[in-house]
């Protein structure tokens, strides 16, 4: 682009405000009209505007997708695109990780000015079932991405305003829940068209040149903010960290993500090539370069709500290195349905490296959110019942606040149980906080939850993804690791038994009770430095037991159980051992280099 940016700041701000509002309007439309529980109650969707090169300009703050346009360009070069076209895809490998697993269906509408491609409006949502081996399409036991549902490569589903119904017909025919899918597709398509119209309105009002200047204005602000913060907070040097996923389900082996953060001469690079080889099970993550960059961007600029996630963050970090065939750069057809487990470890490994670099100025690790898949099929009637519930866990403590308790992820809601019971053929019998699961610390890690689910179907199979059991979320700066979760069938019955926490194909019968206990987040700072009053509050509200208050925090309660024994607390706290390393996972470790950390973990 040779044109000089000439638009004044006020106009740039007007355009920024207008486009942000338009994107929120797209979200509101999806929110209110989608039909599958994933989108309508859980809110698993994303909308954005991208510039003509496919760079993200205005977007939701989810660090899950990649370059949303590049894969479409491979099939439809920009000069072949026309006004009124609409492109869709869910092909993660075929788009180089535009989306990172198959249920996420992308809608992309090119927007034109003077017959030239100007930008894109985009929406994607997580569809309930797109075929594949099991209802819900995602199976913890998948060994190939071809088992995870129908692949739709980038296709033009609408050409100059004319819809190709056949594409939708083929696609919906492959779903076990075609009505729901049609509803979701309508909602996503309507949102995409709405975004296109709003962007055109903005070009009419302000002029296309001004809108283009505003795009660059937004990118430049995010870039500059991130560069400034990194420069301010990260010293020169190389800092490594490795974090672990419990299991890939299929081989039941643990896998790891390693990152090496290197900064010198104002350049910063993130090298993931030390990560494990790609897994046989579905925890592989086609990690677009933007993912760790957006994580850094959101983390380092979190104090400033005016800085938003966009491709400006990508420009602030110079280099991402990945090794093909590794966990974060798998080769087709490695399965990818459970990529979140690796994505969350990309995040925690990154924070571990930042903690090394900054002497602890990073959040402790969060646990990976938990999902279970309860499926029953009646062969005689063909009826399929599918209950997929996402459950909250504990997030890592921050340098300035406790980790969030009982939280799933950004913008993703749990189901009201009065809704779940209406729709899923289950009864929820308890929903509690998992006490003591939050890692002890000056700032406590968030606690997980306990959910009791009674099976009402005659026969059902259960898949479950409950991570952080072997490798609980680590603590930082003297904070301790979160406590693991587990899953028990009929815990109060005569023969309770535990399930493998990452598994599928578990057979259940009518009346069985599933108790899912989710893990907590890591703590930050030495537990003995947590104000005794805060520990007492946690005891009174049931987040911390009296025993843990004594053992971990050195806080002694009076005999009445509702007030502090200050002398006893002082005595107990003098006995507590000081932290012996920057990090903690079941025990303190220094993690000064990647290798020594590996050794320490291997030694456990």
């Amino acid at each position, binding site marked *: 682009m040779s044109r000089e940016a000439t638009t*004044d700041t006020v106009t740039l701000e007007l355009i920024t405000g207008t486009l942000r509002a338009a994107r929120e309007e797209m*979200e509101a439309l999806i929110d*209110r009209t989608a039909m599958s529980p994933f989108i309508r109650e859980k809110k698993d969707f994303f909308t954005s505007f991208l510039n003509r090169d496919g760079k993200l300009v205005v977007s939701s703050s989810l660090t899950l997708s990649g370059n949303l346009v590049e894969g479409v360009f491979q099939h439809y070069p920009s000069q072949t695109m026309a006004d009124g076209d609409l492109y869709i895809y869910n092909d993660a490998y075929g788009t180089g990780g535009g989306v990172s697993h198959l249920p996420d269906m992308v809608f992309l509408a090119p927007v034109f000015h003077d017959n030239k491609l100007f930008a894109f409006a985009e929406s994607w949502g997580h569809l309930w079932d797109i075929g594949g081996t099991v209802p819900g399409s995602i199976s913890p036991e998948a060994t190939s991405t071809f088992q995870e549902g129908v692949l739709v490569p980038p296709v033009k589903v609408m050409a100059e305003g004319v819809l190709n119904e056949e594409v939708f017909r083929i696609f919906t025919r492959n779903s076990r829940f075609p009505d729901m899918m049609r509803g979701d597709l309508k909602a996503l398509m309507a949102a995409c068209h709405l975004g296109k119209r709003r962007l055109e309105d903005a070009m009419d009002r302000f002029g296309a040149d001004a809108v283009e200047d505003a795009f660059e204005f937004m990118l430049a602000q995010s870039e500059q903010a991130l560069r400034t913060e990194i420069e301010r907070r990260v010293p020169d040097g190389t800092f490594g960290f490795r974090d672990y996923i419990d299991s890939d389900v299929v081989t039941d082996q643990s896998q790891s993500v390693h990152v090496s953060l290197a900064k010198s001469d104002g350049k910063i690079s993130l090298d993931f090539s030390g990560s494990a080889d790609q897994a046989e099970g579905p925890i592989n993550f086609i990690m677009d370069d933007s993912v760790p960059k957006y994580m850094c961007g959101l983390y380092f600029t979190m104090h400033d709500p005016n800085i938003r996630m966009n491709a400006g963050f990508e420009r602030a970090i110079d280099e991402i290195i990945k090794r093909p065939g590794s966990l974060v750069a798998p080769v087709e057809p490695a399965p990818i349905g459970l990529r979140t487990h690796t994505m969350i470890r990309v995040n925690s490994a990154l924070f571990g490296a930042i903690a090394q670099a900054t002497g602890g100025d990073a959040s402790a690790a969060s646990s990976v959110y938990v999902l279970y898949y309860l499926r029953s099929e009646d062969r005689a009637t063909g009826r399929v019942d599918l209950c997929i519930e996402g459950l909250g866990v504990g997030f890592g403590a921050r340098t300035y606040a406790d980790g969030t308790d*009982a939280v799933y992820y950004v913008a993703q809601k749990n189901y009201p149980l009065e809704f779940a019971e209406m729709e899923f053929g289950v009864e929820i019998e308890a929903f509690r906080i998992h006490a003591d699961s939050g890692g002890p610390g000056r700032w406590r890690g968030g606690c997980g939850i306990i959910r009791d689910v009674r099976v009402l179907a005659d026969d059902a199979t259960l898949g479950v993804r409950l991570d952080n059991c072997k490798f609980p979320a680590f603590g930082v700066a003297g904070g301790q690791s979160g406590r693991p979760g587990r899953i028990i069938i009929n815990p109060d019955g005569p023969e309770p038994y535990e399930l493998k926490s990452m598994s599928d194909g578990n057979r259940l019968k009518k009346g069985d009770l599933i108790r899912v206990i989710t893990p907590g987040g890591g703590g930050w700072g030495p537990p003995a430095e947590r104000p005794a009053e805060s520990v007492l509050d946690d005891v009174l509200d049931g987040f911390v037991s009296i025993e843990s208050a004594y053992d971990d925090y050195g806080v002694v309660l009076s005999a009445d159980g509702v007030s502090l024994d200050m002398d006893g607390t002082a005595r107990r706290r003098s006995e507590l051992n000081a932290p012996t390393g920057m990090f903690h996972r079941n025990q303190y470790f220094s993690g000064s280099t990647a290798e020594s950390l590996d050794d320490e973990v291997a030694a456990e």
Partner: protein
Amino acid sequence: MASERILALDVGGTFTDVVLVDPASGSLTTAKEASTPGDPSLGFFAGVDKILGQTGVTAPEIAQLLHGATVATNAILENKGAKTGMLVTDGFKYLLEIGRAEVPRKENIYAWVKPKRPVPPRLIQEVPERIRLDGTVVKALSEEACRGAARRLAALDVEAVAVLFLHSYANAAHERRAGEILAEELPGVEIALSSDVLPIFREYERGMATALNASVQPLVGRYIRKLETEMDRRGFSAPLRVMKSNGGIFSPDQAARQSIHMALSGPAAGVRGAARVAELAGFPDLMTIDMGGTSADVCLIRNGEPSISKDSEIGPFPLSIPIIDIHTIGAGGGSIASVTEQGGMLVGPESAGADPGPACYGKGGDRPTVTDANLLLGRIPPHLLDGEVSIDPALSERAIEQHVARPLGIGTVAAARGILAIVNNNMVGALKVVSVEKGYDPAAFTLCAFGGAGPVHAGEIARLLGARRTLVPRHPGILCAIGLLAADLRYDFVRTRLQRAPDYDLAAMAETFDELMREATARLEAEGVTPDQRRFEPSADLRYARQGVEITVPWAAAEVSDAGVEGVIAEFHRLHNQLYTFADQEAPVEIVNLRVTATGLTDEVAMPRLDRVEPGTIAPADGERLVVFEEDVPMRVPTYRREALRAGQVIAGPGVVDQLDTTTLILPGQRCEIDEGGNFILTEEGDGP
């Protein structure tokens, strides 16, 4: 009858507005008193004394006393409700704490801190009981456990208790019995049952409404009893009526029980007032914008009726009761303008408030605000309240120069214009949320601007929005009090009765409507509403099977027949298309909740009229000042005093009209007519009014 006079008091954050109307003579008197947030009843009675003193009217001559109150709103927003306990179904102590388990969509995942709940887990007791979603009892209520829980709560000195049992919308028996036991064990403690507060499904939303209700009940109850005692002492015999968030009024007795319905008492009154004024002026379709010091409230009104929302929020919490659909943004006269480290420019939501206030107040605020921009550009006069307080444009200029113009490398006038452009754009965005986003074309609506800052910005907002007409009420500062005069008694009744296509159970729905009608009739009966003044509006919440959000559709005469159901479904398809740009005639439609809104009509209060002059007479200016519009060079613009203007007069823009509590800006190319109600009707030159 000698005493038909009506007294209306709206207690706002800063001022308490009082209006006294004598319907016999058509006269209307107004007064303003400082609000007293510590004990709002002080400001209330100071206002009463002031207006009675002003008019010589005595307490026994008042036939009705209407009240808009912030007592519930402030308690919720500031987390200062009463110490509240809760009874929940065994196993669900942490329902409020866990909530919907999400980091809100607009938040940064690393920065978000979960807001503190109105009831902490330590005050929540679990009770064995269980009801299934169809209302059948799985496990009987353990009365013994209930009594034990009540005693434990008594020992914790709670002032209120909320009861939330699962699926109680389908069968309230357990909650009722628990309520009785609580009443026995905890005399004098306020009790709220979720099946009374919000009998619809989704336990977190219902539970939060119930917890918030309980936590403000003691405060509202005490406040209302205090008002009534004091009114008695002063010789008032008139009944007190309190403004609700749904735009209606209710009795003090109901206010003390259903206190959550007062959460948006004040803003709802303002919207109701705007609707009334505009209806009298002949404009039943309007968008309102109430712009004050720190925020702006916008709302859409169709055919005289404000839109109602059933899934809004108060502070960080969901509020799923019917309230007037008011969209609020952080844009007001006190909104601060700044330039970010990265060279971006912000206006609001940070506000200078009333203290220190805008830079021009000279009270120590040195950061530029929207008011400073208006002052520097001559759009408001260099004084407040008719000269009682001076404000200094030089301070505005210095603040704008230092914090905006210099960092951006532009002139102060351009910077001031930029501040206004950004804040106006934000308000246009808010107005689009309630109009364009709901499928309504702003060109078909009149923009009604009020609040201290609304009329200054209205002309530019109308142009940006494409609204063809703007109405500035005669008394933009006391619209809330006028709204109280216009409000009817209004109660909403609702029940979840999920009906899936195609097996709609007509008998069950008819029975539910009968039940709701009985409750509604009994309520109006109890309020002394005569049968000819009663109105009932049945409606239903519908959705496509599998959707998660319902649309409320009117159900004429609650005619539960095949034809009736078909009619409701047809209207649902139409509304879905209007709201969300598509409809799906093939998809099965579910009926989720049935509703009845009961209205007890109150007598219409006539508004005073202005003297008329020959229509089209040019209004006399009383001076001039320099005002900057689109160009950097100021224009010499005539100024007018609002009180001096008469019905029928016309002002051709540009012009500025000053009055006690606001200024109306008429842009070049706009034309302002004064109607018989004393309202300004602004149009673009060439368009008709």
